[in-house]
């Protein structure tokens, strides 16, 4: 294992109090060793995508080099190996999320596809004319548009629970919007633009009291905290592999078996059937009913490695480390004159969205980039959130396990540089 980070080196000095040895972690991410524009890379765009540890890259290479074959159909050795490894990741994902059964884990391309799958299958079956779908004002476009499309098709209404000036959900308002016509509630676990952590257990309980099933967008939560779908009791939970140190193009949809069983398939094709004639097709059992065609096998293997990696570091260790770093960053960045933080929820994950004076975030991003600092600028695919705060865009720094106080210091210095350049 590559995780010297956790074991042998833990005794070495770290620059934070938690038990994570960040320098050892950093050594495991090849890309962090490179320079950008002649400066050491300071990667603070983790909410967009995280970097990948050697352990994940090796797992993907090993699959292609040693066992590449199609799954679920070959009688030959390689196919059996690939099938076993692919299905093994399903089991590990089940344990990672604490799902009841491995058949409740569906591999999809990412969070966006997970949400679309539910909107197009469960949604189209259960949402009718005059019904309502409830979301929140802090959703990412991918948890808005699929529901808008569904509502437009069915003549249903999209209701939006509001947030306050700190970027926290007004949970009473959310409760009040759960009505007799609400057919599903879909909300994010952690806001990508604001960092706010939603009280998903409580929200799920409120929805269930009104017999409303719940989908949670976990894209920004899974990399940063332990997630237990049975403790939350949500009906659907979806996340992307690439934000949790895995490859792009792979993600997970968890769904309660009884709901998934009753849902029609999403896409038709091979693997999702048990028998086909021109008159009639019998669909395969879970989870294969929702996995038409040859899946992203290498992606699944890479995802498995990524989940092993974070499990090995420890989700609680990661959460504690990132929380400390966020506190440091919040203090440091908000101390810079004319910086306004957008999103100051009491419960927050490692996202710092900010605006600087009347300087456009795009200009901030370009100048930071010259210093080797990668942040996201723009509306973060959350235009309604930007509208809510009256800004066209923000600059966003988002944290991961390999970020350090030095990264934050570089960011703070970079922001000062922005002012020097733009005067």
């Amino acid at each position, binding site marked *: 294992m590559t995780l010297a980070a956790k074991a042998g080196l833990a005794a070495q000095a770290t620059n934070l109090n938690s038990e994570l040895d960040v320098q050892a972690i950093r050594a495991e991410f090849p890309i962090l060793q490179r320079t950008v524009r002649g400066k050491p890379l300071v990667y603070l765009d983790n909410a967009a995508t995280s970097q990948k540890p050697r352990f994940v890259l090796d797992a993907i290479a090993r699959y292609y080099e040693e066992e590449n074959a199609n799954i679920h159909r070959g009688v030959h050795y390689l196919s059996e190996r690939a099938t076993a490894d692919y299905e093994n990741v399903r089991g590990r994902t089940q344990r990672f999320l604490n799902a009841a059964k491995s058949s409740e884990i569906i591999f999809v391309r990412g969070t966006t596809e997970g949400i679309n799958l539910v909107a197009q299958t469960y949604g189209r079956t259960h949402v009718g004319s005059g019904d309502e779908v409830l979301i929140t004002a802090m959703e990412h476009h991918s948890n808005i548009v699929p529901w808008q499309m569904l509502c437009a098709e069915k003549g249903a209404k999209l209701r939006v629970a509001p947030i306050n000036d700190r970027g926290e959900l007004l949970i009473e308002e959310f409760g009040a919007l759960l009505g007799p016509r609400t057919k599903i509630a879909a909300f994010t676990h952690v806001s990508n633009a604001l960092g706010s952590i939603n009280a998903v257990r409580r929200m799920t309980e409120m929805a269930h009291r009104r017999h409303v099933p719940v989908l949670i967008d976990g894209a920004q939560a899974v990399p940063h905290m332990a997630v237990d779908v049975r403790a939350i009791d949500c009906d659907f939970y979806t996340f992307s592999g690439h934000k949790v140190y895995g490859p792009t193009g792979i993600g997970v949809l968890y769904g309660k078996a009884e709901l998934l069983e009753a849902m029609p398939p999403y896409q038709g094709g091979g693997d999702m059937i048990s028998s086909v004639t021109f008159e009639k097709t019998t669909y395969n059992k879970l989870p294969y009913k929702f996995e038409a065609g040859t899946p992203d096998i290498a992606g699944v293997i890479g995802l498995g490695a990524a989940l092993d990696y974070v499990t090995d570091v420890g989700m609680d260790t990661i959460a504690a480390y990132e929380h400390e770093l966020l506190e440091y960053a919040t203090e440091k960045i908000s101390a810079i004159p004319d910086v306004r933080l957008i999103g100051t929820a009491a419960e927050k994950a490692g996202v710092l969205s900010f605006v600087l004076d009347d300087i456009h975030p*795009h200009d901030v991003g370009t100048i930071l980039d010259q210093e080797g600092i990668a942040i996201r*600028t723009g509306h973060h695919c959350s235009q309604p959130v930007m509208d809510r705060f009256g800004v066209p865009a923000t600059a966003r720094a988002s944290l991961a396990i390999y970020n350090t106080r030095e990264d934050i210091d570089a960011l703070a210095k970079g922001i000062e540089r922005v002012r020097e350049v*733009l005067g």
Partner: protein
Amino acid sequence: MAELRDLYQEVILEHSKAPRNFKKLANANHRAEGFNPLCGDRFTVYLDVEGDKVRDVSFEGSGCAISKASASMMTQIIKGKTVTETERLFETFHKFVTTQNRTESDSAELGKLAVFSGVAEFPARVKCATLAWHTLQAALEDKQEAVTTE
């Protein structure tokens, strides 16, 4: 750092802080909205065209230093020009900010707009520099829908 100074030249910064013709044009007979969906920049360009001549032009909206300065300087330079001259100018400007192989005559034709030469080194910012121009073109063509830089 020299590169950044090439991009954010004094003239550009000055225009971005105090944009010219930054208002609604009461007697506009053409207008269009332009939108850069990637960064949220949004401008409306107003035109008063008589015959073939741009009698007056203005703009409103929000954007980064590059897009705002570009819009501001565009309004200054095209005022009084013919529609044909304006279109030709956009063509030269577009070439100027997207390629390295510029000619002396390009720079001469662009005059003050040549301060945007640094943009070519920053491909991500080309859309910022050209947003106002795309919007201007849409206004001349009376496009009803907002144009985007995508």
